[in-house]
């Protein structure tokens, strides 16, 4: 299977080709579009699997294939493909989750008019994301990064006729662009310093010792600029505002792009260029990593808090995603690259599961997304409920059986040992409690309690939607096999360490602590929301218990801590003002200049016109008259008789013949 290493580009190329093929289909060909997209995805999955195999055989496997894109002067701009454990696991996760979501979408989007377009975009996204994962060049990664952003934009605004969807798409695009600006500057700076953008290039890449040595003191600034991109893409504070709004897109999109894969790209990026971040680390701490930690902590806690007060099922999950991404960032920041990546992978499975479950719920409730209008779906949608519960427990970090529990454990473990400060550790512990709390709240609202308006006529989703749920739920559980501390295979695989089985490591004090914390969160949730949705003492039925108890706090959280409004008043207002100013300048100042230049031009034009009129025209006229006369004379020769022409040709040939004969 080594040929796949030489043809790694095939993996992203297949979904791209599928996307192009789907775009060329006429609008009504739903079956064809779905078949093409799923076939492309299956092909990519198989290829990814084949690419995964060789990485198992050699420890520290890294296959690099570079090529020259173009040359300018002495410089050659080189791009390349890279296959290492990090890329391999990402490939497998993306294609597997993607396949589930593609299949789910055929059910979820079944009645949509723009079904074909949807699958073209999905395939396009898949190709771009796979390309991003296997890039061996920061530039190629950036290109795919932007393509992924484009796919995200197109899919958020998929229901383009909705005002809110269009606005959310625009918001997502612009917000992430702010981060990408930093990323691009970092990229340029890196190129300026090291002269290459290839990660690995036989010792000359920018992540290898020679390249890193050239960075010197600017490494921190470069790292932070690149981190800007990650902040934008992964919805970290302060650029997290776009991600909850992105839930305007179809639910499978939210599951695939805004939960499982694309938003994880920021984390992946940091993990990929980790050598730049950790350059010159003392005891595993650098200033850039410290920034990463604190951003991550802020995001994790803040998003978890906001999630408590949201009513939209998808929005809760979106804030949960933001929070989990923050968790991953913390893990990376404190030096636990493997832990962060493991959480990324596990999160990819269970968050996709949760979103698809939410999609199933929404589908069952006739596109109602407000959890306060649902309830009692447990009996109506048993498959969705059970899989959703698995996802919820994985997200909350219930230990032992759920993949999320092990990875969260790992992260807490790494964070506890961070030498700079122990504050992040406690914040994360609080985050654990909060996560359990808001997930419990959501489950109670949606699946327990009694039925409300939207769930009166709910129904279980079709086979094609529940099957991916079951697959993903199985993944969320089975994935934990390679995560347990007793046999931390994935950990060893990612950071290239030998793995051996040791049952004793399964029993740790941290495990009991998190069990207690999760238990506390769940218990708190059950206690707080036991009577949610029903009238209780003075509280009306449609009021949240928390809102009743702490209206101020609840409003603060419900309005997302007024961050959007803050941006509205500051950044956006400032842009608005400057735009107005530019407009005024344009109208009154620059226009005047342009008009003045125009007037000069017109004056000159008048002059030339008169010259034309007086001097040139008569001359041309005369010439025309002469030409016409000549033409009339010549046209007499054109008798229209073909034989005359033939005769003339014969005369000419004869003359030529005689001339040559005479010469000879």
């Amino acid at each position, binding site marked *: 299977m080594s040929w796949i290493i030489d043809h790694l580009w095939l993996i992203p190329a297949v979904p791209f080709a599928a996307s192009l093929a789907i775009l060329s289909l006429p609008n009504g060909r739903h079956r064809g579009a779905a078949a093409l997209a799923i076939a492309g995805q299956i092909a990519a999955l198989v290829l990814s699997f084949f690419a995964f195999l060789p990485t198992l055989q050699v420890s520290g496997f890294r296959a690099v294939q570079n090529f020259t894109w173009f040359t300018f002067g002495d410089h050659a701009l080189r791009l390349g493909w890279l296959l290492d454990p990090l890329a391999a696991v990402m490939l497998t996760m993306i294609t597997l989750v993607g396949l589930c979501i593609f299949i789910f979408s055929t059910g979820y989007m079944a009645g949509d008019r723009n079904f074909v377009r949807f699958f073209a975009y999905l395939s396009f996204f898949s190709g771009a994301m796979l390309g991003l994962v296997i890039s061996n060049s920061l530039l190629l990664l950036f290109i795919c990064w932007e393509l992924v952003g484009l796919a995200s934009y197109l899919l958020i605004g998929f229901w383009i006729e909705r005002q809110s969807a269009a606005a959310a798409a625009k918001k997502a695009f612009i917000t992430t662009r702010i981060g990408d600006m930093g990323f691009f500057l970092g990229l340029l700076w890196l190129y300026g310093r090291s002269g290459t953008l290839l990660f690995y290039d036989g010792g000359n890449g920018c992540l290898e010792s020679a390249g890193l040595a050239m960075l010197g003191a600017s490494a921190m600034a470069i790292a932070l600029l690149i981190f800007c991109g990650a902040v934008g893409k992964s919805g970290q504070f302060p650029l997290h505002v776009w991600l909850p709004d992105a839930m305007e897109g179809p639910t499978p999109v939210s599951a695939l792009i805004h939960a499982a894969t694309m938003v994880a790209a920021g984390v992946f990026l940091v993990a990929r260029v980790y050598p730049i971040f950790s350059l010159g680390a003392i005891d595993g701490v650098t200033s850039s990593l410290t920034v990463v930690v604190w951003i991550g902590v802020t995001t994790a806690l803040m998003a978890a808090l906001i999630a408590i007060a949201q009513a939209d099922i998808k929005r809760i999950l979106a804030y949960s995603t933001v929070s989990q991404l923050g968790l991953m960032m913390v893990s990376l920041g404190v030096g636990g690259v493997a832990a962060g990546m493991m959480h990324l992978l596990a999160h990819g499975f269970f968050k996709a599961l949760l979103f698809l479950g939410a999609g199933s719920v929404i589908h069952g409730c006739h596109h109602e997304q407000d959890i306060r209008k649902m309830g009692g779906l447990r009996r109506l949608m048993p498959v969705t409920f059970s899989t959703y519960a698995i996802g919820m427990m994985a997200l909350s970090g219930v230990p032992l059986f759920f993949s999320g529990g092990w990875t969260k454990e790992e992260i807490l473990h790494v964070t506890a040992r961070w030498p700079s400060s122990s504050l992040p550790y406690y914040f994360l512990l609080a985050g654990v409690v909060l996560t359990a709390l808001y997930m419990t709240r959501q489950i109670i609202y949606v699946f327990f309690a009694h039925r409300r308006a939207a769930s009166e006529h709910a129904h279980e989703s079709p086979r094609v939607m529940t099957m991916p749920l079951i697959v993903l739920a199985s993944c969320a559980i089975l994935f934990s096999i390679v995560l347990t501390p007793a046999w931390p295979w994935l950990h060893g695989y990612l950071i290239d360490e030998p793995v051996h089985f040791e049952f004793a490591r399964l029993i740790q004090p941290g495990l009991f602590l998190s069990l207690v914390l999760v238990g506390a969160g769940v218990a708190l949730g059950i206690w707080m929301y036991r009577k949610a949705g029903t009238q209780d003492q003075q509280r009306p039925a449609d009021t949240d218990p928390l809102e009743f108890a702490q209206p101020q706090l609840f409003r603060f959280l419900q309005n997302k801590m007024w961050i959007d409004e803050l941006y509205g008043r500051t950044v956006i207002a400032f842009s608005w003002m400057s735009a107005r100013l530019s407009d005024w300048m344009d109208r009154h100042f620059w226009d005047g200049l342009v008009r003045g230049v125009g007037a000069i031009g017109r004056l000159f034009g008048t002059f030339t016109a008169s010259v034309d009129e007086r001097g040139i025209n008569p001359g041309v006229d005369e010439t025309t008259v002469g030409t016409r006369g000549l033409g009339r004379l010549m046209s007499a020769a054109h008798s229209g008789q073909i*034989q005359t022409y033939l*005769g003339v040709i*014969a*005369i000419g*040939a*004869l003359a030529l*013949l*005689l001339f*040559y*004969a005479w010469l*000879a």
Partner: protein
Amino acid sequence: MSSVAFVLIAVLTLAAALAAATLQKLMHATLSFALTFVGVAALFFLLGAEFVGLALIFVYIGAVAVLVVFTILLTRRDVGKDRGANWGGAFLAVAMFGGLTWAILKTQSVAIAAPHIRALTVRRIGEALMTSYVWPLQCVGLLLTAALIGALVLVMEEKQ
């Protein structure tokens, strides 16, 4: 013997050609035209180019002449009288013949007798066609296909 045959055939060919150029009855002129090419093919035979001669008969008698008679048949309503003799054309033709003859007689390098040559077999022609001339052959094939389609399109009845 061969020179006697040559003179006979040349005279026949030229007489047929002249008939084709001057006969008033279109059908007779067409048949004279066919006869001319039989004569030319016979000249080819005498010159040792059997294959080309046969191909000439095949193409001109079997195809072109039949096409011509068909065309005459299809445009039959138009068999009007020619407008008298065209002395200009005749003069030009005679002048051309005179000029060519003068040039041929003047050129000393063409006053040679036939050398003895190896018989030209079809196999040699075939080998040449399939080796050195394979691209021209393909081009001619393409040209013939194009001509076939073009001719069909030209004569196809326009759909009202």
